[in-house]
């Protein structure tokens, strides 16, 4: 599964996207745990959200293989 990174998360992944092998129909919560295991620095940022197909997703949302997934660190536009 391709995961897009923005802002501080790009610096943590050292890339604008990563490819992660995950179980089918993984939840957002499980994905976060998996990511935090691989990138412990994610636990050091204020908070972050996961977006699925351009929408903020809750921890119990299920991600399909064809979905576009992005990690959204605290936003700071304007």
């Amino acid at each position, binding site marked *: 599964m391709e995961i897009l990174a923005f802002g501080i998360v790009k610096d943590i992944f050292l890339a604008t996207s990563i490819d992660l092998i995950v179980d089918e129909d993984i939840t957002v919560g499980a994905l976060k745990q998996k990511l935090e295991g691989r990138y412990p620095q994610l636990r050091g940022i204020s908070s972050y959200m996961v*977006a699925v197909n351009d929408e903020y997703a809750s921890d119990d949302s299920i991600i399909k293989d064809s979905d576009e997934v992005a990690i959204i660190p605290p936003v700071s*536009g304007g």
Partner: protein
Amino acid sequence: MNIDIKILKEPLDINVCINWVMTPQSGGIDVFVGTVRNHTKGKKVLRLEFEAYERMAMKEMDKIAREMLQRWPLHKIAMHHRVGILDVGEVPVVIAVSAAHRDAAFDACRYAIDTLKQTVPIWKKEIFEDGEVWVAAHP
């Protein structure tokens, strides 16, 4: 269409936003212009770098504008955000709102910038003389 949302790499044109929201029915236009400040917490800022998750940012800005039209009797809304490297004094964001009466325009414009800062996936990095930091990333 009465909503104009853009994410641009080029400098924003405040007058374009104002002219776009102007209608013969409007009694007033409220405009918020964000500018790059030369300091943060006592530290000198050299420039800012803005990055957007563009497709989602457009969608979230559109949600804000639609909510504004639901809540206030407005005519037109322009919301332009810039990305890339901006120097001190440059303009990262312009929001212009027209309405028949000023209360609605003021309140809606305030709501727009406050909500944009909370929900729209755009990030800024402050660049100092001795380093750089993604704003709000760390507790």
